[in-house]
């Protein structure tokens, strides 16, 4: 089920909330939690019930392994060592992800390298598998290292499946979540949380269906067309995607956090105005924050440890490797590996720059960072390497420059080799395209983000009116179904 669907907003969410709080009011904590788990699994199965056994199996498997690790008694060695249990658990998770996500990539790569003709398996990626796999690997690591004290299957299953975050994050940590579900017993409906949660939810919905879905038409037309793009439409398509991705993914994260608040559960913040960043280090402190934390803790640090004695150059190597893996985690393709590599490289340069204490004026830093991120998202969005290179070619002006018909009278422009005509036809654009792209810049750079806005909300009529307008506008624009971009990862 999508957050941006009528069945979710008008039926699923209100019904889940209502039953949940009725049960809590009756002090039936167990029943309330079970209801939330049931609702989450229902939410998951709505898309395809065939994958319900998969997620349940994954939860039971990891919970069992986690339990074995947490209770392993070092003084009474068993036939199987603790390390062996841990390694088996982690490998099983990685294999599951490989099977569903990377099999075809491996087969295609093998075919390309060896000249074989193995058929592709065309496995449908189960929703959320990338997310519930890595949160559970973190759980196993913590259990292995003695950090898992609380053992409760219901709390654990809720931590993994709680429907606001299940499909695309924020990436949760069991230590932050399980105690919250443990403490639920006395929680009754909190009007303030409900109000603020609704506010954040509808701001997120607005970002998704009004803003992101508008940019998406030009981005899709530009990236999916086979005809060569001239300079201006190529840039507009790339920028459209960069804005679409931000408003889509941060809108989704806002909705997730907002829904969490309605249930009195606090989810971590995932975005903090990333396009204000003046450097790559800064960017990753603001973009997909929960992923940055996860990668730093469970990827970067083990790599660094494996390198032995710490030197600056080794830490740079570890950063690059961690970002490369993070890129591949996003998707099974060379484009994602290149995307990860670019960001790894960007971080390495930024750290080296900082280490030498070289100067970087804020405006120049922003210009470099934003453009670098924009270029990297060309690889992130393009369906293939060829596709990405074609887009970059257009942005470099290899397919010439075409401007609007009305400028055809200018002899100077014509002398420069510029042609005139339906300049934005290739991306199905109109004047609205460049106006919206231009307007997006001051919004992402100077405006307060949704969380900052919600932190100022007061129980006043003016705010309530804003809520109604945002909600009404979003619901009107919701007629078309569009998935969130991060569902494909």
């Amino acid at each position, binding site marked *: 089920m999508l957050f941006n669907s009528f069945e979710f907003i008008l039926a699923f969410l209100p019904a889940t909330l209502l039953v949940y709080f009725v049960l809590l009011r009756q002090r039936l904590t167990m029943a309330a939690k079970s209801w939330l788990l049931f609702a989450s699994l229902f939410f998951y199965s709505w898309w395809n019930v065939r994958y319900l056994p998969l997620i349940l199996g994954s939860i039971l498997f990891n919970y069992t392994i986690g339990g074995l690790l947490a209770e392993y008694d070092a003084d009474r060695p068993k036939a199987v060592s603790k390390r062996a249990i841990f390694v088996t658990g982690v490998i099983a998770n990685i294999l599951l992800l490989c099977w569903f996500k990377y099999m075809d990539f491996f087969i295609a790569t093998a075919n390309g390298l060896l000249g074989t003709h193995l058929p592709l398996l065309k496995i449908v990626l189960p929703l959320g598998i990338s997310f519930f796999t890595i949160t559970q690997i*973190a759980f196993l*690591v*913590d259990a292995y*290292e*003695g*950090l898992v004290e609380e053992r409760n299957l219901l709390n654990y299953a809720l931590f993994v499946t709680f429907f606001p975050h299940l499909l695309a994050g924020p990436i949760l*940590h069991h*230590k932050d979540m399980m105690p919250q579900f443990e403490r639920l017993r006395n929680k009754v409906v909190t009007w303030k949380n409900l109000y603020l949660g609704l506010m954040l939810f509808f701001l997120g919905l607005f970002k998704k269906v009004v803003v992101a879905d508008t940019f998406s038409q030009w981005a899709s037309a530009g990236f999916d067309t086979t005809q060569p793009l001239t300079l201006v439409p190529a840039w507009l398509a790339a920028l459209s995607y960069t804005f679409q991705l931000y408003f889509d993914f941060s809108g989704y994260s806002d909705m997730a956090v907002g829904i969490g608040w309605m249930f009195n559960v606090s989810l971590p913040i995932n975005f903090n105005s990333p396009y204000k960043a003046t450097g790559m*280090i800064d960017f990753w*402190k603001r973009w997909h924050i929960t992923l*940055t*934390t996860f990668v*730093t*803790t*469970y990827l*970067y*640090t*083990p790599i*660094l*440890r494996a390198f032995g*004695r*710490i030197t600056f150059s080794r*830490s740079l190597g570890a*950063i690059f490797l961690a970002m490369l893996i993070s890129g591949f985690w996003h998707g099974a393709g060379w484009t994602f590996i290149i995307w990860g590599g670019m960001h790894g490289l960007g971080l390495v340069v930024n*750290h080296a720059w*900082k*280490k030498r204490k070289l100067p970087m004026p804020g405006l120049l830093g922003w210009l470099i960072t934003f453009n670098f991120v924009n270029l990297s998202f060309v690889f992130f969005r393009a369906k293939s390497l060829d596709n990405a290179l074609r887009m970059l070619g257009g942005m470099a002006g290899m397919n010439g420059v075409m401007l609007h018909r009305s400028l055809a009278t200018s002899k100077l422009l014509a002398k420069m080799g510029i042609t005139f005509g339906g300049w934005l036809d290739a991306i199905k654009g109109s004047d609205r395209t460049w106006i919206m792209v231009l307007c997006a810049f001051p919004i992402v750079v100077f405006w307060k983000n949704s969380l900052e806005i919600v932190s100022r909300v007061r129980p006043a009529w003016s705010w309530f009116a804003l809520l109604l307008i945002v909600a009404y506008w979003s619901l009107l624009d919701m007629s078309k179904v569009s998935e969130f971009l991060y569902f494909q990862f």
Partner: protein
Amino acid sequence: MTTLETLEPIFREVFDDKSITLRRETTADDIEEWDSLTHMNLVVALELKFKVKFALGEMQKLKNVGEMLDLINKKLA
């Protein structure tokens, strides 16, 4: 028993700043180079120096020098 004085050289090396002096209350806000990444470098450097091992999941939560010191002493005990 590990003390602030024994931590100081490690901090100075990781953050490449010879002027660092530590108090128990020192946090990332007091040292310019101390960010989430160099934090991890610091913790791994402490591991190597004191031959202790931190759990990955507890590293990020160490907010100030005092907490680090206490955890190291707990692990050495």
